[in-house]
């Protein structure tokens, strides 16, 4: 047995060159061995009247395909095929060679307007989708208000635990570190005016008004908003949500409402908790590097931070929680088709939630300053 498939051209002298040559293939015509032979065969020019397979000792469908194609290109007959080879040749015979494996791609001048048009339509259906989603939530609220016994308390408590309680360690640690950074960096700058003691004002006001709530919202978007989208998206794919509908359970009532309530309520507690953790972080820096005793730092906070700073944070927190939960649930319920869509929608949920939170935070900042809570 030969190691590679080979060919020889036999000129059949007595028949004359006009008829062309006889192509004799030998060796194994299998996928593993055929690559060099196939390349050589493609370069063959001149007429060939027969392809002789009698010296072939092994053949598979790839070999049969190459033989068929060569015979077709040269308009040659195939002889000497064993019974098995004949069956293989027969099975691949009628199949055309042309065509690409990818769907045809339109030229650029068609593709760009098409893509723009698609985006416009997607934007429109996005707006419809959001309005419809708000409508569904409203309907669910009304029907729950009519029959409070149907309210999904268990799911609510479960979601509160997932969104709030299990987030405590990571949010506490994050906020504590942020407090340390603000106090440490702030004191370096304030020192230049000889005003290190104002570090207390800096830490207290910025964490209660802005950073405590904002960072918590970003963390909740990453932890829970993404989880909402992925859970609901997977439930959509596995037809769980359709199953609920057919039994007469409203998926918005049992899935969306508890998540929205849990995120809204827990954001208030988490936001406050984060601010407290950040202040403690600041107090630790005060004790260690600024010479302000820990407890003095904390009691100074009470004196220098106006009460409305706390309210600013506590008013923003539920709004941010609501946005994060709405984005997560909305994108989760928009999943259709395949598992790739779950990933895409989860990303969109987190990105749109964080973006909306930051935009809204800017509006809040202006608003609260305007009403004199500066």
């Amino acid at each position, binding site marked *: 047995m030969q190691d590679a498939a080979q060919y020889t051209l036999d000129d059949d002298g007595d028949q004359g060159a006009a008829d062309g040559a006889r192509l004799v293939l030998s060796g194994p015509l299998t996928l*593993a061995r055929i690559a060099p032979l196939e390349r050589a065969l493609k370069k063959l020019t001149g007429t060939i009247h027969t392809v002789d397979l009698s010296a072939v000792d*092994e053949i598979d469908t790839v070999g049969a395909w190459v033989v068929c194609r060569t015979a077709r290109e040269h308009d040659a007959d195939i002889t000497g095929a064993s019974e098995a080879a004949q069956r293989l040749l027969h099975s691949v015979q009628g199949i055309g060679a042309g*065509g690409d494996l990818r769907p045809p791609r339109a030229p650029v001048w068609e593709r760009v307007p098409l893509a723009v048009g698609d985006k416009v339509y997607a934007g429109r259906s996005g707006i419809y989708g959001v309005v419809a989603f708000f409508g569904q939530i409203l309907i669910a609220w009304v029907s729950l208000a009519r029959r409070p016994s149907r309210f999904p308390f268990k799911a609510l408590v479960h979601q509160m635990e997932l969104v709030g309680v299990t987030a405590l360690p990571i949010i506490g640690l994050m906020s504590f570190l942020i407090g340390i950074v603000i106090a440490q960096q702030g004191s370096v700058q304030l020192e230049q005016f000889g005003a290190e003691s104002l570090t207390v004002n800096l830490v207290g006001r910025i964490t209660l008004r802005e950073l405590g709530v904002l960072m918590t919202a970003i963390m909740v978007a990453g932890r829970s908003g993404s989880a909402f989208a992925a859970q609901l998206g997977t439930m959509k794919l596995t037809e769980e949500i359709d199953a609920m509908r057919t039994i007469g359970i409203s998926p918005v009532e049992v899935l969306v409402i508890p998540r929205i309530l849990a995120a809204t309520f827990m954001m208030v507690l988490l936001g406050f908790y984060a601010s407290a953790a950040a202040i403690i972080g600041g107090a630790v820096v005060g004790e260690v590097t600024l010479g302000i005793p820990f407890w003095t730092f904390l009691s100074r906070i009470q004196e220098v931070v106006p009460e409305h700073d706390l309210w600013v944070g506590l008013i923003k927190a539920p709004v941010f929680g609501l946005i994060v939960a709405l984005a997560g649930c909305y994108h989760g319920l928009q999943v259709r088709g395949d598992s790739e869509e779950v990933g895409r929608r989860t990303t969109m949920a987190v990105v749109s939630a964080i973006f909306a939170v930051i935009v809204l935070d800017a509006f809040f900042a202006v608003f609260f300053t305007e009403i004199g809570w500066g």
Partner: protein
Amino acid sequence: MRVNNHPEDDAPPIVVEGLVNRFGDFTVHEGLDLTVRRGEILGVVGGSGSGKSVLMRSIIGLQRPTAGRIDVLGRTITEVDLDQGIGVRRRWGVLFQGGALFSTLTVGENVEVPLKKFYPELDPKLRREIARYKVILTGLADSAVAKYPSELSGGMKKRAGLARALALDPELLFLDEPTAGLDPIGAAKFDRLTRELKETLGLTVFLITHDLDTLYEICDRVAVIADKKIIAVGTIPELIATKHPWIESYFNGPRGRAAHASHDRNQIGGDQAAWQTEVDG
């Protein structure tokens, strides 16, 4: 069909000896033995949760058994590092239950994947041609080659999955419930396709199924998994003759009898057709 000149080729392609699979306290297989003969279609049946899929996963090296020895095409799967190239992957093809097509690639590109992986020296044009004729060989239309899996129906996905399993002209084909979820017409066509491919390409087929029609129509032998081992292997009449209660209720239940009856009818019809062609020829 390959003309075989390799000495090892006379050996059975799959030999399982004393296979034990245990997940925690739960034992799936306990001393399971099975030999698959070259060139046969072996049907594997068993109740739900009896470990049919686990057996297949053990044989193709997706799962390391707790104990036992599995030889596939002359390689001892239980002794090789499964993350490495194990030398036999290019000689088998696997069709998973849902087709398991790569969703970001078209059907044609799916078939190209194993060709690219194992035979990078192939001319890209030839590789595309191979991918294309494989798809058409499994009975899909020309236009399906450039479609994405999400655009295909369940039956078409299975055919596309089969095309990918056949991409390398394997000697050994694993089919996991190929007709589950297909309508009876589609299932019958798939059975016929399996039989045809086996005869043309000389395949050995390891076929897990719940479909009694498939068992009657195309399987040369049937292996029954129950009580954590293979309790019997043989043709269906041989199995029924064992008088094992599970086998009896499996083949002599209402569905088993119906499948048997339709098989008998087809046999007569098939003989008629063969006779007809002889006369015509």
